[in-house]
């Protein structure tokens, strides 16, 4: 009896080995200058992440989902997008979002729970990080569909984790995208865990990319800590989408170095051995640094300068976030439920304001 069965084990695609040497061909559009730019963004993002955790510890920031370890996956993938492409991220994509143009103070305001943080800059077709796992994958499908219907160049990219691939919405999104051959890229950061649940408990397959087979879609498994390989994979997928070739599923194999969020204690579930290996030998920033150093494009002084510049930008962002005006609560609560306030909302807003004046709100 002949049956469908997948017996191969495809290793993650790699261009740059963990020691910074090339094991594959650099994409033509990645010269040293561009890689230095990636590197500086990765360093900036890492510093931002550390600072955010710090602010949280000081009680100056609410729940924050750190991304340290995933900088290559995020910056490598966002780098292949054009500025007016649609972006539907999850809460984890802060590094990519910063790279894409989100002002860093917005990322801080998001973790401060400020309503303004949901109001993405007008010039970006980017949604705030989705909280409901996998829900955004369908939105990307719809936006890609709109592009296709209108004959636009614009494609849609959506970002999510390994855990998200277990949700029904993920399946429905990939199925719609493939049936309608839509210009959308599904970018999964397999960071090994969904909170405490390891990817081996999330799926029986060894690679998220294998799931693409169920949709006759190309699935690419890439070393997510190799910014060059990530970029190349995303480039391929974005080009395919833009040229009418339909969707792609990319899995970037990476690692969440920190806790799931500031509310999480990863010591409860993490394998310390594997943790050490990922940190010490597979850090994405170290890898790119070794490469650039060998190319003569990195030295200690540059590093110091870039760190200093990063820290300055971050300090400014913290300053801007902390001095940001408190929300206009009446507006934030009542004025964006519908395009026009309903009679009930008019009444409620009025009584809210009255309570406000009496000091009865909180």
């Amino acid at each position: 009896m002949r049956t469908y069965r997948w017996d191969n084990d495809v290793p993650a695609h790699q261009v740059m080995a963990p020691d910074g040497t090339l094991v594959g061909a650099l994409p033509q559009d990645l010269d040293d200058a561009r890689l230095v730019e990636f590197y500086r963004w990765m360093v900036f993002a890492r510093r931002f992440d550390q600072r955010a955790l710090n602010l949280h510890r000081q009680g100056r920031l609410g729940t924050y989902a750190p991304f340290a370890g995933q900088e290559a996956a995020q910056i490598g993938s966002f780098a292949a997008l054009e500025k007016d492409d649609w972006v539907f991220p999850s809460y984890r994509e802060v590094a990519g979002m910063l790279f894409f143009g989100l002002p860093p103070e917005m990322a801080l305001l998001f973790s401060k729970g400020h309503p303004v943080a949901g109001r993405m800059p007008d010039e970006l077709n980017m949604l705030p990080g989705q909280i409901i796992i996998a829900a955004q994958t369908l939105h990307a499908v719809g936006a890609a569909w709109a592009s296709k219907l209108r004959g636009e160049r614009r494609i849609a990219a959506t970002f999510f984790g390994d855990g998200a691939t277990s949700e029904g919405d993920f399946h429905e999104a990939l199925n719609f995208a493939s049936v309608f051959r839509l210009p959308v890229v599904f970018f999964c950061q397999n960071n090994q865990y969904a909170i405490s649940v390891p990817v081996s408990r999330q799926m029986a397959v060894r690679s998220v990319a294998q799931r693409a087979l169920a949709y006759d879609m190309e699935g690419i498994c890439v070393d997510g800590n190799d910014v060059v390989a990530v970029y190349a994979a995303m480039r391929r997928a974005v080009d395919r989408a833009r040229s009418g070739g339909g969707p792609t599923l990319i899995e970037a194999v990476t690692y969440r170095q920190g806790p799931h969020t500031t509310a999480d204690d990863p010591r409860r579930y993490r394998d310390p051995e594997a943790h050490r290996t990922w940190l010490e030998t597979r850090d994405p920033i170290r890898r790119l640094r070794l490469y650039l150093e060998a190319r003569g494009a990195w030295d200690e002084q540059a590093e110091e300068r870039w760190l200093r510049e990063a820290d300055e930008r971050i300090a400014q962002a913290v300053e801007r976030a902390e001095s940001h005006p408190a929300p206009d609560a009446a507006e934030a609560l009542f004025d964006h439920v519908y395009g026009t306030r309903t009679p009930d909302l008019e009444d409620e807003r009025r009584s809210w304001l009255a309570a406000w004046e009496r000091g009865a709100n909180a």
Partner: protein
Amino acid sequence: MTERTMIQAIQDAIAIALEQDPRVLVLGEDVGKNGGVFRATEGLQERFGEHRVVDTPLAESGIVGSAVGLAIAGMRPIAEIQFLGFIYETMDQLASQAARVRFRTQGRFTVPLVVRAPFGGGVRTPELHSDSLEALFLHTPGLKVVMPSNPYDAKGLLLAAVADPDPVLVLEPMRLYRLGRMEVPDGHYTVPIGQARIARPGTDVTVVAWGPTVPVALEASEAAAAEGVSCEVVDLRTISPLDRRTLVTSVEKTGRAVVVHEAVRTGGVGAEVLAAIHDGAFYSLLAPVERVTGYDTPYPPPAVEDLWLPTSKRVLAAVRRVMEA
């Protein structure tokens, strides 16, 4: 003006929307070649093409979720959920996504989405096809919900929904799809969302109904009139936002109210209607408001459904009770 059944009026409204606005598209299960299982989209794929009237894979969350993306990106999707009982599959995409994008992004993105769904009992459908679930959406900020009881309102409310900048759920009582015909204007017009309608003026008792129970309420009112009781029938037309003012105005006049709905009693829209009357016309009330509704059970199988649905006799009995109280 043309005589139209409700389903024809709906088909006409969709055709007009497709014609007038290139951003409009229709998506759902069997809406294309088949013209919808009730023929609401009959002939539209032929007329407007496969890209504007789209058969999707069988996945409701996919339909609503991708429609949310379409709407965010500037389209005006009209999604069909084949029967309201299947809307549970889309609750996250409806309540946490469609209804919240405006609020979440503080106005930066919006979801001008229409979701149509047939529902309601009395037509011998299999399980889970007949349930009345409007109460779930009355309790969902960011959504609007309309429910026509006649062909004119069906067309006008649907066109108003398409024009609305926010997600609107259009609940269509399938029992009324072909129940009768009525003069319906041919062109574009809207019935404003949020305004109830006095379906029959009266002075003694306010009978509040919506969708499939409007004819039931009217029939009961007719019978009451024969007993010398004058009922004012309020057809809500919009479930959310609720037109509290019309309710209160009517009860201030009549002093009595009976609420009729097909959904199960407890936690239904009837409770909020009762609350609206209680809040707004407390000192006018001469008797407790009565609710005549489905019982607190799952919607029952066809062989017993008629024994479960609110009947005009039950409404009449309630009218008598409030008159005697």
